[in-house]
C-alpha cells in the first residue's frame, strides 16, 4: 500500500522531486523558497520590472531632465509617421533589414559549407574546427578594431589582397553602398556557432541513408540536395530564426566600427550603418529621449514576434 502513495507524492512534487511528509516537508518548502529567492529577486528587479516599466515609459515623454508625462501613443505615431521629428527612423529600419537579409544567408551558407567539409574529413578535423571557431569567442570590441584595420583603404590587408588579383581597393567603411556588405562579411566570418550546430545536425543523419543513396547511384550533388539538405531542415530553420532575431539587434560591432571622437557615434557615412539598435541607443543615451527609445524597443519586439511567427508559418511548413 505504501508504494503507490509514494508514487503519488512524487508526481505531486514534480519531476524527480521527492515530497516528504510532516516537518520534513515544511522544511523543504522553506529551503526551496530560500534557494530560489536570490534568483527571484534578480528576476523581479532586473527583468520583470524593467520590461513593464519600458512598456509604461514608451507611452510617456520621459527624458532624464523632467518627470514622465503620459502622451499615449504619440511616441509610436511620431516614430512611424513624423519624418521631421524622427528623420532617420525608417533609414535605420532599412539599414537593419538590408543587413539582416545579407548577413543571415551569408552566415548560414558559410557555416554549412564549413560543417560539410569538416564532416567529410577525418585527419585534422579538430584543428580546423578550432581555427574556424576562433572568431566567435573574440570580443566585439576587438572584432571591430581588427576589421577597421583590415578594411583600411590605404594600408589594410583586404585591399592589398584584392590588389594582388587586380581588383581596385575600396574605401569599405566610408562608401555608403559598401558598408552593409562589409558588416555582413564580418558576421559571416563569425559563423562558428552556426557551424558547430550544423556539424551536430550532420552527425545526426544516419549513415545508412547516405549509403542507400550511394547504392541508388546518387552523386554527391544529388545526395546533398536530396538527402543531406532536407535532413538538415530543422537545423537550418532553428539557425534562421535565431540568426534573424540576433541580426535585427546588431549593435556593439557597429558601435565600435563607427566610433568617432570620444563617445560620439556617427552611424557611418550618410547613416548607411545606422542600425535600428544603434539608433535606439542614440535616442536613449545621447538625446535623452527615453520615452521614444522605449517605444522603439517595443516596435522592435513586435516586429521580431511577427517575423518569427511568419517564419514558423511559412518556412517551417515548407520544411515539413
Amino acid at each position, binding site marked *: 500500500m505504501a508504494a503507490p502513495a509514494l508514487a503519488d507524492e512524487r508526481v505531486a*512534487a*514534480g*519531476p*524527480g*522531486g*521527492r*515530497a516528504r511528509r510532516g516537518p520534513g516537508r515544511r522544511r523543504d*518548502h522553506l*529551503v*526551496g523558497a530560500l*534557494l*530560489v529567492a*536570490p*534568483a527571484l529577486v*534578480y*528576476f523581479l528587479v*532586473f*527583468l520583470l*520590472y*524593467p*520590461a513593464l*516599466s*519600458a512598456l509604461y515609459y514608451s507611452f510617456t515623454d520621459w527624458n532624464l531632465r523632467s518627470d514622465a508625462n503620459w502622451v499615449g501613443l504619440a511616441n509610436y505615431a511620431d516614430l512611424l509617421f513624423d519624418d521631421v521629428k524622427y528623420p532617420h527612423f525608417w533609414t535605420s529600419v532599412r539599414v537593419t533589414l538590408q543587413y539582416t537579409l545579407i548577413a543571415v544567408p551569408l552566415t548560414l551558407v558559410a557555416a554549412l559549407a564549413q560543417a560539410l*567539409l569538416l564532416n567529410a574529413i577525418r585527419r*585534422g578535423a*579538430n584543428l*580546423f574546427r*578550432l*581555427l*574556424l*571557431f*576562433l572568431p566567435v*569567442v*573574440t*570580443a*566585439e*570590441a*576587438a572584432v571591430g*578594431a*581588427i576589421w577597421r*584595420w*583590415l578594411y583600411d583603404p590605404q594600408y589594410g*590587408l583586404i585591399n592589398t589582397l584584392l590588389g594582388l588579383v587586380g581588383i581596385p581597393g575600396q574605401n569599405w567603411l566610408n562608401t555608403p553602398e559598401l558598408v552593409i556588405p562589409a558588416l555582413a562579411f564580418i558576421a559571416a*566570418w563569425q559563423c562558428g*556557432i552556426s557551424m*558547430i*550546430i550544423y556539424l*551536430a545536425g550532420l552527425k545526426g543523419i544516419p549513415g545508412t541513408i547516405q549509403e542507400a543513396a550511394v547504392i541508388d547511384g546518387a552523386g554527391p550533388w544529388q545526395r546533398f540536395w536530396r538527402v543531406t539538405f532536407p535532413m538538415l531542415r530543422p537545423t537550418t530553420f*532553428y539557425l534562421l530564426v*535565431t540568426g534573424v532575431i540576433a541580426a535585427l*539587434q546588431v549593435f*556593439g560591432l557597429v*558601435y*565600435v566600427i563607427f*566610433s*568617432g571622437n*570620444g563617445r560620439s557615434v556617427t552611424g557611418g557615412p550618410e547613416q548607411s550603418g545606422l542600425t535600428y539598435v544603434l539608433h535606439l541607443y542614440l535616442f536613449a543615451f545621447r538625446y535623452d529621449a*527615453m520615452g521614444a527609445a522605449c517605444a522603439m524597443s517595443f516596435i*522592435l*519586439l513586435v516586429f521580431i514576434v511577427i517575423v518569427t511567427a511568419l517564419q514558423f508559418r511559412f518556412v517551417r511548413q515548407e520544411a515539413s
Partner: protein
Amino acid sequence: MRKASMYAALVLLAAVSVVPFLWMLATSFKHGQDIYSKVPSLLPLDRKTGEWAATLGNYDYVLGVGGLGGAFVNSVWVCAVLVPAKLLIDALAAYAFARIPFPGRDRLFVIMLGGMMVPAITLLVPRIHVTQSLGMFDTGWGLIVPNIASVLDIFLMRQFFLSLPAELEEAALIDGAGRMRIFWTIVLPLSKPVLAVVTITSFLFHWNDLVWPLLVTNDPELYTLPLALQQLVASPDGGRAYYIMAGATLAVLPVIAVLLVFQRRILAGIAFTGLKG
C-alpha cells in the same frame, strides 16, 4: 583527389578565419612607421630594410597611457566576482526548481522562462534606470549586480539536475542528510559537465561584453577591457593601428587561451544549448 580539394578548401577557410588574428598580432609588434608599408607583412619587419624589427613599445603605451592596464585589472575583477557568484545563485535556484518541492514552484519557473523571450535590447534602458535608482550607476557594483543571475543558466542546470538519478538523493534523504548537504556532496560533484559549460560561457560573455559597461559607466577608472579598447579606437590614437592592435591582442589572448584549454567542453556545450552568453 576529392579529399585533396576538400583540404584545400578548408585551408583557405581557416586562413580567412585566422589571418586577421595573425595580422593583429604582427601589427601590435610593429614600430609605428612600419605599418605604413606598401606590402603589408604578417611579420614585424622594417618597412625599408625588410629586417626583423619587433617592439613591445605599443603594449607599454596602451597598458599605461592608453588605460588598458587598469581596464584589464577591472575585467579580471568583474569576472572573478561575477562568474562564481552567478554560478552559485543559478545553481541553488536550479536545484530547488529541479528537486525541492514548494508551493507554486513550477508555475514560477515557467514565468521566469517567459522572461527569456524579451529581447535584451528592450530591457536595456529601464535596466539602466533601475541600476541608477539603486545607486549603482557608475560604480563597480553596477558592473556586477545587474548581471548576477541568468534564467538561461538556471534552465540549463535544472535540466541537468533532473537527468541525475533521483534514487541517490532519495537514499541520502532517508539516511537523514539535509537538502543542502545532498546538494554539495552528491549533486554538485556529479554536475561538473554542466557547471563547466555554464562557467566558461559566462566568463566568455562577461569578459567580452561591451554594451553593459558602455551604458553603466562614465568613469574611465571603471572601464573594462572591451570598453577601454573601444575608447582607444574612438580617441585620437584611433588611427594608430599599432596601438589599437596591441589593445585588441590583450582582449583576445585570454579568451583564446580559454578556448584552447576548454575547447571540447565549449564546442559540446554549444551543440547542446545552441546559444552563447
